[in-house]
C-alpha cells in the first residue's frame, strides 16, 4: 500500500491551540518553512506585480502640456490637484475618489463571497511585505530549522553578523517602502534629488520616517499579530462567507484518523487499524505564516494563503496518494464529498444572487462614475450674491447688486472666454477687476482664463430706476469658451428689496 518514504515529521504545535493558558500570553514566534508549489508560484507572481506597481507608478510620465505636471499619478496636495493618467481632479470632484473607495469595498465583498479571503492571502500589503521580509530572513539566516537553532544559540559573532545583516536589509526595504510613498505626492525625480540633498520639506522626511518604522515593525516583528489582533477584516469576513465561498479546507473525511507511524502499522500487519491519508507530518503547520493547524478547521487566523495546500500536496505526491487532502473547497463541496455525494463543479458559484447583486452594485457605481467623468464640463461658474448689504441704492435711485463670481478653468490650457449675463433687460454690469466699463445685458465681455486656475471676479449689476422690476428677478450669468465649445449658464437673483 505505502512505499517506504522519507517524510520528515515536524514537532510543532499551532499557536492558537487551546489549553489552560495564562492571561496575557507571550507571543509564540513563528518560523514559517519554505514550501514549493503552484500557490507559492502564484504568490510570487502577485507579490512581484503588486510591489512593482507600488514602486514604479510614481516614476511613470504622462504628457499634459506645459501647464500641468507630467507625472502619471500625482496627488498634488499643495496645489489641490489629483492626476491619474488622463484624468485630472479638482478638490470639489473628490467624490470620484469616494466612488472608487465604495467600489473597492463592494469589490472586496464580491471577492470574499466567491474566493473567500483571497485579499488577505495574496494582495494585502501586510501579506506581501511579510512575504518579502521572510524571503530576506530566509536568505540570510536559513530556513526554519536554521533560524530556530540560531535563535536558541548563545550570542556569537556569527549570530550577531547574521542578525545585523538581516535587520540592515529589512531597514533598507522599509526605507524604500516609506520612500516610495512620498513620490506619489510630488514630482518624483526632483523630490528624489532634493530628498538626498536634505532640501526636501520636513513632511517628506517625517512621512518616510513613520512609514519606515511601520514597515519595519509590521513586516519584521508584528507579522501575523497584525492580522489576528489589529485588523478588523478577519472578524468582518466571518459574516461575508457562506457555504459557497472558497476556503482552505482540510478534508478530514479522507485524512482521519491521521497516523504518524504508518510504516510501523503496516509492518505490524494490522489492517484492523483504520488509517486516513494524513500522515500527521505537520508540514502544513510549519509552512503556515500564521502558525496555525488547518486541520483544526476554518479559523479566524487563516488568511487562506494556501501554502499548506502546497505543503500537503508535495507530501501526498511523495507517499503516492492523490493530492488535495488540503484544498480550496466550499463548505457545500466539503459536505457533499464527506457524504460521498458527487461534487459539483465550482464554476456555478459565481452565479448566485449574492455575487450578482455585488457585481451589479459594483458595475452601477463604476458606470455612473464613468458617465459623469466622460460628460463632465471642464468649465464651471459659481455665483455668490453679496449678503451684506443685499442691495445698494445709488444716488440716481437705481439699485445695485454685488456678486462674487468664480470661474473655474479646469483644463491645463489658457482660454479666451466670453462672460455675459442675460435676463435683465436695461441692466448693466461692471467687473471690478476689469475697470469702469459698463457691460449691457447680453453683451459678451472677453476674458482671459489662465490654465488650470480659478478666477474670481467682483461683479456689480445695476438696474436703472425707471426699469426696476417689481420684485426680485432671476437671471443668468453666462460663460463661454468658443475654442472648446464650453457653454455654462449659472442662475442668479437680482434683489430689489431689503428684507
Amino acid at each position, binding site marked *: 500500500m505505502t512505499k517506504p518514504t522519507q517524510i520528515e515529521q515536524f514537532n510543532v504545535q499551532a499557536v492558537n*491551540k*487551546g*489549553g*489552560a*493558558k*495564562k*492571561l*496575557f*500570553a*507571550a*507571543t509564540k514566534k513563528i518560523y514559517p518553512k519554505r514550501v514549493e508549489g503552484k500557490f507559492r508560484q502564484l504568490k510570487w507572481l502577485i507579490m512581484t506585480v503588486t510591489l512593482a506597481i507600488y514602486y514604479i507608478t510614481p516614476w511613470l510620465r504622462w504628457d499634459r502640456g506645459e501647464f500641468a505636471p507630467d507625472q502619471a499619478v500625482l496627488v498634488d496636495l499643495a496645489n489641490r490637484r489629483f492626476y491619474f493618467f488622463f484624468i485630472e481632479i479638482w478638490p470639489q470632484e473628490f467624490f470620484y475618489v469616494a466612488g472608487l473607495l465604495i467600489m473597492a469595498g463592494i469589490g472586496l465583498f464580491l471577492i470574499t463571497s466567491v474566493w473567500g479571503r483571497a485579499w488577505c492571502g495574496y494582495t494585502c500589503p501586510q501579506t506581501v511585505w511579510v512575504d518579502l521580509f521572510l524571503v530576506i530572513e530566509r536568505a540570510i539566516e536559513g530556513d526554519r530549522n536554521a533560524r530556530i537553532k540560531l535563535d536558541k544559540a548563545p550570542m556569537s559573532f556569527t549570530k550577531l553578523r547574521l542578525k545585523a545583516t538581516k535587520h540592515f536589509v529589512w531597514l533598507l526595504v522599509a526605507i524604500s517602502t516609506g520612500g516610495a510613498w512620498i513620490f506619489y505626492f510630488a514630482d518624483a525625480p526632483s523630490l528624489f534629488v532634493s530628498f538626498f540633498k536634505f532640501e526636501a520639506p520636513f513632511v517628506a522626511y517625517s512621512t518616510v520616517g513613520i512609514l519606515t518604522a511601520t514597515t519595519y515593525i509590521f513586516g519584521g516583528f508584528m507579522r501575523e*499579530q497584525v492580522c489576528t*489582533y489589529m485588523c478588523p477584516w478577519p472578524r468582518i469576513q466571518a459574516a461575508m462567507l457562506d457555504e459557497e465561498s472558497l476556503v482552505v479546507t482540510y478534508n478530514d473525511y479522507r485524512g482521519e484518523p491521521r497516523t504518524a507511524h504508518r510504516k510501523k502499522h503496516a509492518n505490524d500487519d494490522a489492517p484492523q487499524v483504520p488509517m486516513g491519508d494524513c500522515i500527521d507530518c505537520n508540514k502544513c503547520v510549519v509552512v503556515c505564516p500564521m502558525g496555525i493547524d488547518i486541520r483544526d478547521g476554518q479559523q479566524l487566523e487563516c488568511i487562506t494563503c494556501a501554502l499548506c495546500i502546497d505543503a500537503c500536496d508535495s507530501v501526498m505526491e511523495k507517499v503516492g496518494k492523490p493530492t488535495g487532502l488540503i484544498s480550496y473547497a466550499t463548505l457545500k463541496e466539503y459536505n457533499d464529498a464527506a457524504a460521498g455525494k458527487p461534487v459539483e463543479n465550482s464554476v456555478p458559484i459565481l452565479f448566485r444572487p449574492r455575487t450578482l447583486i455585488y457585481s451589479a452594485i459594483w458595475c452601477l457605481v463604476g458606470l455612473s462614475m464613468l458617465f459623469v467623468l466622460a460628460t463632465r464640463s471642464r468649465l464651471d461658474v459659481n455665483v455668490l450674491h*453679496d*449678503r*451684506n*448689504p443685499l442691495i*445698494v*441704492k*445709488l*444716488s*440716481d*435711485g437705481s439699485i*445695485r447688486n*454685488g456678486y462674487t463670481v468664480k470661474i473655474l478653468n479646469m483644463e491645463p490650457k489658457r482660454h479666451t472666454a466670453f462672460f455675459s449675463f442675460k435676463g435683465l433687460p436695461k441692466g448693466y454690469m461692471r467687473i*471690478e477687476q476689469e475697470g*469702469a466699463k459698463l457691460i449691457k445685458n447680453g453683451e459678451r465681455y472677453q476674458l482671459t482664463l489662465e490654465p488650470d486656475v480659478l478666477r474670481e471676479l467682483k461683479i*456689480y449689476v445695476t438696474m436703472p*430706476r425707471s426699469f426696476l422690476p417689481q420684485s426680485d428677478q432671476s437671471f443668468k450669468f453666462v460663460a463661454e469658451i468658443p475654442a472648446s465649445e464650453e457653454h455654462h449658464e449659472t442662475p442668479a437673483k437680482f434683489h430689489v428689496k431689503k428684507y
Partner: protein
Amino acid sequence: MTKRPIDEITGTETTGHEWDGIRELDTPMPRWWLITFYLTIAWSIVYCVLYPAIPLINTNTQGTLGYSSRGELTKSLEKAREAQTGLREKIKSSSLAAIIADPQLFSFAKAGGKAAFKVNCVQCHGSGAEGSVGNPNLNDDDWLWGGKLEDIHLTIKHGARYEQDDDTRLSDMPAFGKDELLDKTQIEQVADYVLSLSKGSADASSSGAKIFAEQCASCHGETGAGDRSVGAPALNDQIWLYGGDKKTVIESIHNSRKAVMPAWAHRLDVETIKQLAIYVHSLGGGEK
C-alpha cells in the same frame, strides 16, 4: 485563584458567564498588547508632568514646559504680525495711488482695511458698511465729502465735526427753526421744494424756491446738487441720510444735523488708516 471551567472543544478557559447555555471564551490577550496599554499609562503620566493637566480648585497644574494654548495663539499672532511688517512698512511709505497700483499691496491693504473696519467702524456704519439713519452707507455713490481715495482718507484721518482735531471736516448748517431764521410756514414751504427737487418736479416760481435760493443755495447749490467742499449733501438725489419724508426734512431744517465722526489719526496708525481708506473705496462706490 479558583480553577475556571475549560471549554471542551477549544480547550480554552471560559469566563464562567453563561447565557442560555452559551459560555464566553476567555482567550488570552497577547502580552505585547498589555505592554502597549502600560506604555499609554506611562505616556499619560509624562504628559501630565509636562503639560497643563490636572484641574485644581481655582486653577490647574501648569506643567513644566510652560505650555498654554493662549500662549500658542499669542506666538502665532506675533509671527503673523512679523510676517506682515514688510508689507505694512511699504504701505506706510507709499502713496495711496501707488498702493492700489500694486496688486499684492492692494489686496493686503483691502484685507487689512476690512479687518480694521470690523473693529473700529461697524458700530456706526454697520458690518457691511451699509450705514443707518445718520450714518452714511459707504457702498453707494453718494459722498458728503468726496468719494476719491484721498477724500476718503482725509475724512477718516480727521473725522467730521470732531472738535479735538483742527483739520476736521466741518460743515455748519444753521438750525433755521431753532434759531428763528425761518418761521414754521417758510420751513414747510422750503421742505416741499427740497422734496420736489429729488422727485424732479421742482417749481422755480414757488415760494419755497425763493427761500431756497436765499437761504440754502449758497451751500447746497442752485439745483440742490450739493457741494462736497463744504460737506453739503446733494438734495436732488434719491439718497437721504436721515429720511426722505416731509416730517424728517422739516426736522433737519429746523434743528440742523450735527453728526460727529471721530478723527482716527489719534487712535490708529498711518498704515491702518490708509488700509481703511482703500477698503472703503473698494466697496463699489469709490470714485477715480
